[in-house]
């Protein structure tokens, strides 16, 4: 192998890379917050929600979990405009990530809720709490605590999956890498660098979520 590696382009390409990193971080922050919120709402529907809504949520979850993120993204960005719903690349990317994470986190949170003993609901009711109050204060928080590691992994997976949004020209880190390598013709080095950045982001995000779990659930699990 007589290939000579060249990383000289790195300095002049730094602004482009940094912008890409910023967009990727922005995407995952918005995606995580709204995605988990959507997941909680769906988990509530499946556990205690109105009967007619349950099959709707179940279908949504199954559809999303059994199709590739790329196709969901294409469907939202290219398919929905036929129905008159148009949006920018970034909005489409954000929406796709929220919808995707919403379905996965719904399943994860539901598992946490199912692990809650039946007596907890009854105890909540006997304290004159409304079903919603019981759900929020008694069921949800311990459930989230129980499944926090799984939820964190899923958020990291969605972050890594977001590399795909470059395909609809949302200007994330992968888009930046594609742009840079089309200029410097150093495809391998460019992708190595961006892969390492993704790795660092994944490790950072994992630590951040672990820290957040520490802050949100200071009490020891009551099991």
């Amino acid at each position, binding site marked *: *192998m007589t290939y000579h590696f060249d990383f000289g382009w790195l300095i002049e390409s730094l602004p482009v890379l940094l912008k890409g990193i910023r967009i990727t971080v922005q995407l995952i922050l918005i995606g995580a917050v709204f995605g988990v919120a959507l997941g909680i709402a769906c988990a509530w529907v499946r556990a205690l929600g109105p009967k007619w809504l349950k099959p709707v949520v179940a279908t949504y979850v199954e559809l999303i*979990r059994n199709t*590739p993120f790329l196709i969901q993204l294409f*469907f939202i960005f*290219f398919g929905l405009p036929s129905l008159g719903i148009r949006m920018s690349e970034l909005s489409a990317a954000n929406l796709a990530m929220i919808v995707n994470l919403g379905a996965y986190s719904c399943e994860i949170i539901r598992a946490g809720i199912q692990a809650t003993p039946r007596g907890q609901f009854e105890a909540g009711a006997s304290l004159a709490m409304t079903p919603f109050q019981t759900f929020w204060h008694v069921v949800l928080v311990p459930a989230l605590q129980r499944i926090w590691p799984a939820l964190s992994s899923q958020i990291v997976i969605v972050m890594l999956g977001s*590399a795909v949004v470059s395909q609809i020209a949302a200007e994330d880190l992968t888009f930046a*890498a594609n742009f840079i390598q089309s200029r410097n013709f150093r495809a*391998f080095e460019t*992708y190595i660098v961006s892969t390492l950045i993704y790795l660092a982001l994944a490790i950072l995000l994992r630590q951040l979520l672990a820290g957040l779990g520490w802050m949100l659930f200071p009490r020891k699990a009551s099991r």
Partner: protein
Amino acid sequence: MIEFSFWDILRNLLLAARWTVLLSLVSFIGGGMVGAALLFLRIGGQRWARLLSRGYIQLFQGTPLLMQLFLAFFGLGLFGIDVPAWLAACVALILWTAAFLAEIWRGCVESIAKGQWEVSASLGMGYLQQMRYVILPQALKVAVPPTVGFSVQVVKGTALTSIIGFVELSKAGSIVTNATFQPFTVYGLVALIYFALCWPLSKSSQLLERKLNVAHRNH
């Protein structure tokens, strides 16, 4: 302008879906073999082997599959080989699948009680014998549902190979869209075909889990 009927679209997508199925099978089987090797290193006695395997798994689980595909595509080219898209796709998907399967299976092996290792060691068995006769037969039962469940991720992962130019279901979707200008129908159908491939796998994983759990409770 040529008119495309619904049947034209569906037929072309279904023809391309064969490649999705084939690529999934290759990745899953190849990934299973590499993953098994990783598993043996990961839980074996040698410290360096454990570290190596752990580093591999973290690297592949901590980076996007898309980047791995790009690196396989352009990296193999550095050796002077003209890399066809299918080769890069197979290599990247096998390595990616291996990392996840090794980690899943490690959890299964570790769920086997420690006493089983000690008992088999006290019978004078070596590491490979312990694995072959005592640990793996038990771990296999635990491993089946999550492994089937992960196969769904593999099928979905193959969609990314369209980006490096491998013509499977997703790429066919883009091509057909460009010809017909009916993205809603085409991507809707593509999604439904993926669903038809993945949903039975998801469901059987859930069923297996329930079935094997019942077996557990009876112990």
